[in-house]
């Protein structure tokens, strides 16, 4: 268990000392969403209608930005060799790296979402639901993304391939994330949508490490 915390702490301190990736994802998120009022015009009704979808799509793309380096940096400097050999099971290492990715990328996105919700003229209940949906849904973005990152770890310029692999898998998160906010705005129950988002996240906690670990081992052959 100490190994898990060591990996988590190392990846977090790398994310904050290098600064780059996490803050870039946040800036990308804010800028992308800000472009929409400029693009579709400042009509409050249209913005409120498309707001949840725009914010979710921007969140998916922002989470992807730093994913291609999740394992690649460790492959390039030989760290991956030693992480594979370490007593900590590789699945746990993957999970720790996903947790660090979520804390450094997912949390800032969640923190910025309410402000962007206001920008998109979303009603208060919609913003609260958006927050809840993002808290429950974004962990799966890091986890599902880790599978793609592990599969493309040895591919040069694998970022595009990673997007093509991972974005289709993000579709359920997008659908239920947006549906939850829509339900809240029209006064329907948000519970089923939030439960489904939690189910996706919990399922990917189990599946992602199991899928990513063999992919990483294969990359070292």
């Amino acid at each position, binding site marked *: 268990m100490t190994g898990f915390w*060591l990996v988590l702490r190392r990846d977090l301190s*790398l994310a904050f000392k290098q600064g780059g990736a996490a803050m870039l994802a946040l800036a990308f998120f804010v800028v992308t969403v800000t472009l929409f009022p400029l693009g579709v015009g400042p009509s409050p009704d249209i913005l409120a209608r498309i707001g949840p979808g725009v914010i979710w799509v921007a969140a998916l793309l922002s989470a992807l930005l730093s994913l291609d380096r999740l394992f690649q940096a*460790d492959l390039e400097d030989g*760290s991956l060799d030693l992480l594979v050999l370490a*007593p900590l099971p590789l699945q746990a290492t993957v999970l720790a790296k996903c947790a660090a990715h979520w804390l450094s990328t997912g949390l800032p996105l969640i923190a910025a979402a309410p402000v962007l919700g206001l920008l998109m003229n979303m009603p208060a209940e919609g913003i609260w639901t958006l927050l809840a949906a993002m808290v429950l849904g974004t962990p799966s973005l890091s986890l599902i993304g880790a599978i793609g990152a592990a599969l493309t770890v040895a591919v040069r310029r694998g970022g595009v391939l990673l997007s093509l692999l991972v974005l289709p898998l993000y579709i359920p998160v997008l659908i239920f994330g947006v549906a939850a906010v829509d339900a809240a705005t029209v006064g329907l129950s948000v519970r089923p949508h939030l439960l489904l988002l939690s189910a996706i996240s919990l399922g990917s906690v189990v599946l992602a490490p199991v899928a990513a670990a063999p992919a990483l081992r294969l990359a070292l052959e």
Partner: protein
Amino acid sequence: MGFNGEALTCIRGDRLVFEDLDFDLQPGGCLVLRGPNGSGKSSLLRLCAGFLAPAEGRLRFDGLPIDDDREAHRARLTYVGHLDPLKPVLTVAENLAFWAGMNGASEAAEDALARFGMAGLADLPARYLSAGQRRKVNLARLATSAAVLWLLDEPTTALDDTAVAALTALIAAHRAAGGMVMAATHIDLGLPDAATLRLETPRLPVAVDFR
């Protein structure tokens, strides 16, 4: 007893690297791998570490095939490859302490650094290190490791004479405590009574691999 390989064959990318290779390493022993570039020294070490599976043949530790218990095999070995796994933004001490922590350290990171005369640089971010200094930090990992089997792939790359002497002393101490060392090298490490395994360039036609 010990660590041994029988009739090992290694194929990398449709190319036969070596075949029918045997070696035997006893506790306290040292096996030096010599041979021209591309003769399979690194491949043999990666085979022993379990990164690769042999196309044929079998690796045994204390008589048991290493495939039977991969976890136990990983726990008893430590591997030094061509790359130095240091993160540029972390300090030397942070880098070393991470690996020591991951592998259950037997010696404090500071003491291990002192063996290679790196104690004064412990608080320096690793990005400012020279190639030789990076290698010394990587080798200091050996001193913190409790592993029985050391797999060293050209450990002396970029090292100065003092550091080579420190490495030789470290290997001698490890062997005196019953440890085993396998090292691929092009220079004479000055290890007493170390067995040498000579790898030849494969006789079969070699497909050119541009990767």
